[in-house]
């Protein structure tokens, strides 16, 4: 045991060198600045913005959130400031922190996705792009891009064509075959895959006889979904060559390290930041402490190290 040594926590993600593998997940960390009081931004590997679109979106009516056993549903409706206000009001903060900012974005057509990728590509403060493909394709009867390999591939190709920045594709878990989706995105030019986005869930108020969320269904996140996320990360990491980022119900360093054993090169912290705004920093610190206690000198040796 070399317990006195400081382990190497850095990972390389599609060409980005991260100081550690802990990234805050889209939609759960605002535009970064909201958490400045709780997280030393230079203690985490990277942070991801709320999902961005060409025009500002106001989102869904309320209620937008409901707690479920061990998890929560959200139907925020992709509320965001839009690309212009993002550049004007949010990007300046990115210059003040020495940590990569990753822009998460979406569109309703392939063209909108490509246009967003083009716009984001021009922002030097944005280190990488994460495509949220869990959105309906308005031109194809509302089929969700992320549930059809061809749809997803066309989005990824179109974005790939307009950006040289690292391109992460965020996979939806609401599919029969997540490996087929992963391969389609890899072949279309993704530099990395992140998974999972939220499952689709619903909650009902018995006394009011109504769905609790104004939107009826919502995205299901939190510790409850961890077993599904871990399984999908393991399946995808075995099947693709690009790095995989594990997401889903990570609440602590043990959870994060389990995702790395399953094959993730990095992890994203989502719902945990709501419960504990300092969660991401604490997880990064505790992961390092775990490595020290176990005499492991490089976090990279954990990636895919599951014996089975």
């Amino acid at each position, binding site marked *: 045991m070399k317990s006195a040594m400081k382990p190497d926590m850095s990972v390389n993600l599609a060409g980005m060198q991260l100081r550690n593998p802990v990234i805050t997940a889209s*939609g*759960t*960390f*605002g535009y970064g600045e*909201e*958490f400045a*009081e*709780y997280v030393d931004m230079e203690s985490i590997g990277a942070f991801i913005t*709320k999902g961005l679109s060409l025009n500002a979106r*106001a*989102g869904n009516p*309320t*209620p*937008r*959130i*409901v*707690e479920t*056993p*061990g*998890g*929560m549903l*959200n139907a*925020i409706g992709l*509320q965001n400031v839009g690309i212009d206000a993002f550049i004007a009001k949010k990007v300046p903060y990115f210059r003040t922190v020495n940590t990569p900012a990753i822009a998460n974005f979406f569109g309703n057509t392939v063209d909108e996705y490509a246009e967003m990728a083009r716009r984001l590509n021009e922002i030097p403060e944005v280190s990488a792009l994460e495509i949220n493909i869990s959105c309906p394709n308005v031109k194809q009867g509302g089929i969700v891009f992320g549930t059809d390999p061809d749809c997803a591939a066309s989005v990824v190709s179109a974005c790939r064509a307009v950006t040289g920045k690292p391109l992460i594709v965020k996979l939806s878990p609401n599919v029969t075959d997540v490996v087929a989706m992963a391969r389609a995105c890899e072949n279309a030019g993704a530099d990395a895959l992140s998974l999972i986005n939220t499952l689709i869930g619903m909650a009902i108020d018995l006394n009011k006889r109504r769905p609790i969320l104004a939107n009826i269904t919502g995205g299901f996140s*939190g*510790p*409850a979904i961890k077993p599904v996320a871990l399984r999908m990360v393991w399946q995808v990491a075995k099947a693709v060559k690009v790095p995989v980022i594990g997401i889903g119900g990570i*609440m602590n360093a043990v959870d994060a390290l389990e995702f790395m054993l399953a094959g993730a090169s990095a992890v994203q912290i989502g*719902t945990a*930041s*709501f*419960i*504990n*705004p*300092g969660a991401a920093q604490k997880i990064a610190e505790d992961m390092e402490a775990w490595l020290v206690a176990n005499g492991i000198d490089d976090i990279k040796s954990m990636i895919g190290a599951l014996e089975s």
Partner: protein
Amino acid sequence: MQFTSLILSNVEVSPGYWRMRMTAPPECAASRPGQFVMVRVNGAIDPLLRRPFGIFDVGTYIPAQSGGQSQPYLEMLYRVVGKGTSMLSTLHGSDLLDVLGPLGRGFDQGSPDEEKLIVGGGVGLAPLYLLAKELATKSKVRLFAGGRTRDDILCITEFERLGVECYTATEDGSLGEQGLVTEALLRRLDHIQGRAAIYACGPHGMLNAVAGIAAERGISCQVSLEGYMACGVGACLGCVAPGHSHSPDTPDFRCVCTEGPVFESGELKWGE
């Protein structure tokens, strides 16, 4: 700020309503009336999310024994409505709580020469005590407290001790006059000669009525809203409320946890 707090006491002050005193860092002494805290009921995942509660009071406690080292504290007044609050009510002195706060934008004092009309419904009184404490040092303060039954009328003695004149109304007439507390408010407004300002917290229907009265009479009115909160720090966008220009086509949402929970009633969209 996130801190671990030691529970000093947790007592049922009226059937279903509890008052909890807990240690707090010195910074909490500067909490604005109307600000709130997010409390993690326990370390397990059930309940998962923190629960928001107004700050009822802050102060400094000097233990009689143990050297008399002074200890800042914070108080909450809460109603047991579901899983989280019923677990809270089982906690004892010396149990620990994980607390985030003070959060949000509190009440604005307004100018001292106004008559201060505080309107509270049930547990909506919670953030109004600290407000009354502040206002009563400079202005005439009247409290209008409403509830369904007398059990929902809380801590009137505490308000009276501040020199606040209290009016109470219950729907079943079991305490004070029978009916809605807005009726007493209206009667008072009819008598006021000078300027007045309204501060309200309570069920949405009550706030709606109060906002209507204020708009009609052109009186300044601040309301404290609730919203379903996951984070309390402006990140989840769960807690939003429609702003005055909101419509399905031109949506205008305000973030209750950071832009509120206290708003000028004119900033918000009200129903009929």
